[in-house]
């Protein structure tokens, strides 16, 4: 047992060492990782959702946040505002099939409490940098408990071109995602902005504290 522990500890220790050596000789360049592979762009006539003619794909810079001109905006029904995307700074409204019913609501089996009681009201969190743009949420407190979180600002850096790489995984089914509303108990997945979401929500809750 002790021997096994030793080897494991050595493994962990050597991992640190190796990682140090690794990082010493290899300087990752973020741009290497994000350039889309050549030859994957399909013409607009491919099996895609119809969209207006798209500008040249934008290359997101990973290591250095691009200069973003934040613009306060509301997420409107039926349109996606990408005004805060990096250059070119054009606002393009994408037609998007959307149901007209209400946004997702999580089934409220019991009231939610976050770290005790809060004062009733609505509290807007700080605008936080979500890297691709700004994020802001509003918390609603009823009877001292958090009952709702609304997203006031949300960055959207969605690319304006689509393709389906049909050669990579020919056996697997693909579909264009569509936004739904449904009553569910839980949500998995996050936005591109979960850290900013938490920061803004925490800020809103801090205001709600006595």
């Amino acid at each position, binding site marked *: 047992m002790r021997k096994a522990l030793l080897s494991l500890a050595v493994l962990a220790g050597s991992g640190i060492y190796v990682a140090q050596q*690794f990082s010493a000789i290899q300087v990752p360049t973020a741009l290497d990782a994000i350039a889309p592979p050549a030859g994957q762009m399909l013409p607009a006539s491919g099996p895609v959702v119809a969209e207006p003619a798209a500008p040249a794909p934008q290359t997101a810079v990973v290591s250095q946040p691009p200069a973003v001109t934040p613009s306060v905006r509301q997420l409107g029904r039926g349109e996606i505002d990408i005004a805060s995307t990096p250059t070119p700074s054009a606002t393009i409204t994408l037609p998007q099939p959307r149901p007209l019913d209400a946004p997702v609501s999580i089934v409220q089996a019991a009231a939610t409490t976050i770290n005790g009681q809060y004062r009733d009201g609505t509290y807007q969190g700080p605008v936080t940098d979500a890297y691709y743009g700004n994020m802001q949420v509003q918390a609603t407190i009823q009877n001292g408990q958090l009952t709702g979180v609304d997203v006031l600002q949300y960055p959207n850096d969605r690319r304006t071109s689509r*393709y389906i790489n049909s050669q990579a*995984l020919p056996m697997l*089914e*693909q579909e264009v995602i569509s936004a739904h509303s449904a009553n*569910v108990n839980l949500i998995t997945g*996050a936005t591109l902005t979960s850290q900013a979401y938490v920061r803004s929500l925490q800020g809103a809750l801090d205001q709600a504290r006595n």
Partner: protein
Amino acid sequence: MRQTRIIMGMPITLEVVDAADASLLEATFAYFEAVDRQFSTYKADSEISAINRGERDMFAFSPAMLEVLAIADQTRNQSDGYFDIRRPDGAIDPSGIVKGWAILNAARQLEAAGAEDFYVDAGGDIQAHGHNAQGSDWSVGIRHPFEPDRIVKVLYPRGKGVATSGNYVRGDHIYDPHSGARPADEIVSLTVIGPDVLEADRFATAAFAMGRAGIGFIENLPGFEAYLIDRQGVATMTSRFKDFTS
């Protein structure tokens, strides 16, 4: 009874149907706080921070730390090196294991305490047991990656674990270890259903680092299904994924 708290930098939600009082939830939140104190690379006085500063003798690693490091090493081997807790800056960051591991431990503790119908949700990684308050299967929506108040799918994991990796992950700790950089950002979200949340989480992280090839990796893992969404809003699913959507 349901409560949410922000621990480990993320919302953690517990629901225990028909819980007599809040003590079970309190104990579970306390467990997550203890895990955070031990494993947070953001806390200077955590065990992992001491290890990264070279201050901790190998034999002084806690059993929990050894277990997490062993799982991390196993995952690295199982993913051909794509899962790697060694960061480019030389530190080790086991948070890619700790989250799912802590959720699973919390769920086991709730089960051992007699809870039958409950879930543990930490930052969207989920272990659910039994049924919801209405007596139905727990339902899990996959969040729309571009519209935070919408979902794209409804899952019924029925006791399996669910985890989602994305390029939004806290601290950006998902790297392609072979290039030393972050993976191509064409993939925005990869949701994995696995035997339990730890399995789902560690393989979601590993597969996400593979980029588009990750869905093929999950397809070839027995007992796992996945739903991958790319930047263009196109989803690819494994062959039995739909077993969990109805």
